[in-house]
């Protein structure tokens, strides 16, 4: 490729840096709502089409069947400055789409796991996933009306989290609340990096 003869206007600013944060959690916990609360446009949707080849079990002919599945991801964009753009990606809920998670998690600076105290167990798969990958994450307890209020340390205990993992309350509909959650995640991710660097130096 001929990089020398760029047709971009001379003096055009370099392209910004893009980073991403994942928003995970169980079905209907408020992932899309959270993305929409801080994004500059309403959440966008993108799709991956997956083709799986398999032999149908009920199919006596044994003919190979191709099944296509569409996995949808919601995402939003926050332009932080001329040279920095933040993308928030809601992870697809179904456990069988782990490989889409792998693509999403690659290069992500961290994740927010949304939890609903009425069904805490729904966020176990997300927590297991990010723990396993070493992706920094915070747990944000989305306060739905009518849900019994738990103390954050009770949630921490129930989720069997490393005591360093931040657990915060949030309202996924409120921009300020979501901003706070994201800032908590970034500060925690920086702290973790520092600790890992120090551990590596020892």
């Amino acid at each position, binding site marked *: 490729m001929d990089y020398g003869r760029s047709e971009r206007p001379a003096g055009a600013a370099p392209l910004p840096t*893009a980073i991403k944060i994942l928003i995970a959690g169980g079905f209907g916990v408020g992932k899309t709502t959270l993305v929409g609360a801080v994004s500059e446009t309403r959440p966008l949707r993108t799709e991956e089409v997956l083709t799986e080849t398999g032999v149908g079990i009920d199919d006596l002919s044994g003919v190979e069947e191709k099944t296509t599945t569409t996995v949808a991801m919601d995402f939003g964009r926050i332009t932080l400055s001329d040279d920095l753009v933040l993308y928030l990606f809601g992870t697809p809920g179904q456990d069988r789409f782990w490989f889409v998670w792998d*693509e999403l998690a690659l290069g992500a600076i961290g994740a927010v796991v949304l939890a609903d105290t009425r069904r805490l167990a729904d966020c176990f798969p997300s927590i297991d996933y990010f723990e396993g990958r070493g992706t920094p994450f915070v747990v944000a307890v989305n306060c739905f009306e009518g849900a019994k209020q738990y103390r954050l340390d009770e949630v921490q205990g129930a989720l069997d989290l490393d005591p360093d993992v931040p657990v915060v309350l949030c309202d996924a509909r409120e921009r300020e609340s979501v901003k706070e959650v994201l800032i908590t995640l970034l500060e925690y991710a920086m702290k973790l990096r520092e600790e890992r660097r120090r551990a590596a130096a020892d």
Partner: protein
Amino acid sequence: MTGQGELAEHEWVDDHAGPVVRPYAVTGGRARPVTGTFDLISLVTATRAEVGSESGLGPEHVAIVGLCQRIQSVAEIAAHLDLPVGTVRVLLGDLAARSLVQVREPRATPAGLPDDSVFEAVINGLRAL
């Protein structure tokens, strides 16, 4: 309430073969781009104000050049054109091979993550929002 709209979108996506077959037609059946990897958040900008009817370019290629007059991520291009990400990657590969788009892959250190200054800039940017 966006509930109904979302439901309609789901139905459309799963509806028969249409949306699955069309992306294939768009790329001429190709599954991989001729060049580039195109992360979901790779940023793309057009190098020209428009492209004419250059040989081998379809309407979707032209649409991408139009969209990328403003910087867009791969995910945004896919969402705006209502095409699967894999299809958009193939189309972007064609455009990159002709130097019609410039692509910036996400900045990462060898460890796979952006450097500290990026974290600080994000925190400050969010506070100022």
